[in-house]
């Protein structure tokens, strides 16, 4: 039986997530692994927006901020369970993305980049300034998800790091599965068509503005879920999650690995999450490195790392 590209990608991803812990020298690596997966969830959203639809957002961290603070605030103020709070955050993010995206995506070109940049700055400004509600720049505590205790009661005791490794790994798998499904769905085809040429896409009957808004909303929900995961895992959240640099990190991860491919984007997220861990010098030079990666990849390797390498290997093989 021959597996489809989609299923082999998912199988590969599942195997890597399941087998990587065999090589972990210490429990700390579960923690790093879960950070990689959470970043990857957000970056898979960028794949849908940038890789499929060819649009760019410079304020996606704003949606992560909404998702994260929903988990902090909704349980306290609305009495919601943290899981439902994450859902609420995703809904709010989606609605915000729709409201911001709707007027902008009727237009062609660079407008979304500018408007989303402003949106991201605005969200982090609100989170930092409204101290009475959000706790200000110091951040705020987040309630426990409670799932780990349930698992322990059911006879599956996991350490905190192990639990979040598994949980965010599963979230990444689900996110990738949805993104890969979208790729071959009518909406996905419409997005890729307008990426190639908006005029051509419209000629064959694609509602271009609507398709672009759809992509923006979906990717905002991914960013929001990633923000919720960060908040729930760390049991606290600060306005940094909505910061401009976080938006830039997301775009750079996607672009480095290959914005057009889910696996490539996950590779990009993995590299850029692990590098600062492996070489502490990078902390000081992180911005320089991110900027260089963005420029070099766009100039010399526009498809990104994974697609370019695959093309190279295929070219040799024939």
């Amino acid at each position, binding site marked *: 039986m021959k597996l489809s590209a989609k299923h082999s990608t998912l199988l590969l991803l599942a195997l890597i997530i399941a087998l990587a812990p065999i090589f972990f020298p210490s429990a700390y690596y579960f923690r790093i692994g879960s950070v990689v997966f959470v970043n990857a969830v957000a970056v898979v959203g960028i794949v849908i927006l940038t890789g499929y639809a060819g649009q760019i957002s410079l304020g996606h961290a704003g949606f992560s901020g909404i998702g994260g603070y929903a988990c902090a605030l909704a349980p306290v103020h609305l009495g919601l369970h943290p899981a439902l709070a994450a859902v609420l955050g995703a809904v709010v993010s989606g609605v915000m993305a729709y409201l911001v995206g709707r007027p902008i995506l009727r237009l062609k070109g660079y407008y979304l980049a500018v408007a989303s940049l402003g949106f991201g700055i*605005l969200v982090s400004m609100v989170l930092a300034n409204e101290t009475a509600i959000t706790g200000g720049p110091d951040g705020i505590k987040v309630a426990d998800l409670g799932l780990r205790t349930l698992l322990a009661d059911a006879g599956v005791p996991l350490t905190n790091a192990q639990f979040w490794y598994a949980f965010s790994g599963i979230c990444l798998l689900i996110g990738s599965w949805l993104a890969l499904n979208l790729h071959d769905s009518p909406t996905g085809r419409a997005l890729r068509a307008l990426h190639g040429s908006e005029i051509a896409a419209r000629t064959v009957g694609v509602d271009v503005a609507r398709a672009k808004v759809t992509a923006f909303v979906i990717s905002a929900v991914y960013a929001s879920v990633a923000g919720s995961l960060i908040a729930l895992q760390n049991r606290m959240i600060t306005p940094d999650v909505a910061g401009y640099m976080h938006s830039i990190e997301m775009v750079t991860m996607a672009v480095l690995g290959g914005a057009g491919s889910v696996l490539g984007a996950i590779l990009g997220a993995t590299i850029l999450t692990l590098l600062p861990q492996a070489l502490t010098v990078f902390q000081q030079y992180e911005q320089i490195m991110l900027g260089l990666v963005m420029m070099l990849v766009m100039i010399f390797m526009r498809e990104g790392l994974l697609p370019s390498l695959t093309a190279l290997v295929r070219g040799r093989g024939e």
Partner: protein
Amino acid sequence: MTELLQFLLSGITVGAVYALVALGFTIIYNASDVVNFAQGEFVMLGGMITVFAYKAGLPIPVAALFAILLTAAIGVAFNRVAIETARGAPVVSLIIITIGASIFIQGVAQVVFGKELHRLPSFSGDDPIRILEATILPQSFWVIGGAMVVFVGLWLFFTRTLLGRAVLATSNNRVAAQLVGINTGFVMTLSFGLSAGIGALAGVLITPITLTSYQVGIALALKGFAGAMLGGMGNPKGALIGGLMLGLLESVTAGYLSSQYKDAVAFVVILAVLFAMPQGLFGRKATERV
């Protein structure tokens, strides 16, 4: 009434800076269709290099000139190394390149100049000048005057000189300009140098009032962009008026509504313009709708 006059005076001062950033955007956008997200970094570099050259013992005018020339050279190098190499790339790739350049310049500035705020003494003292009941800093006149000189200079350059007309021709139609013998590569170089130099000048003029740090660039870029869009993207007159209007709106918002949220004005302006009149106040080019 006094209050309002005070807000207007400070609004015009910041607005003049936004107008200069918007002009810088416009020049590059016209010559190359590139929306340069690194424009704010030129402003940061202008202020920052002046501060350090001044600390190293140069008198302020020399330090400022040095900063403007060095920033212009960085702009030219950026065009050569990144923009020209990526010629023909899709809009999204070009945006990522200019954002990458912006982050890169910020990162270098953070390492070279440090993370703290830097100050520069005012050019002609700090004694406020009274206008009716309101006061204005002497440095504000430098900012407003600087913006006016740049605008008049650019207007003369684009309407009275052969080279300026060559730039206009290139922005109208690149291929046609090449056909009549215009060296469009040189026009690009010139545009990036000019735009970076104007940005740096804005940085030099405003630093005594607002101080500077490695992070100021991106917010300035957003505001310059909001100004340019309000005035109509690609129109120098629109950039000037849009920038000034944004400065006034911001200062009135800070005065009457909330000083914490004055930075939100730029974003609201961008959304309002996109929603109601994407061509801006003076835009000639029809925006491409889909």
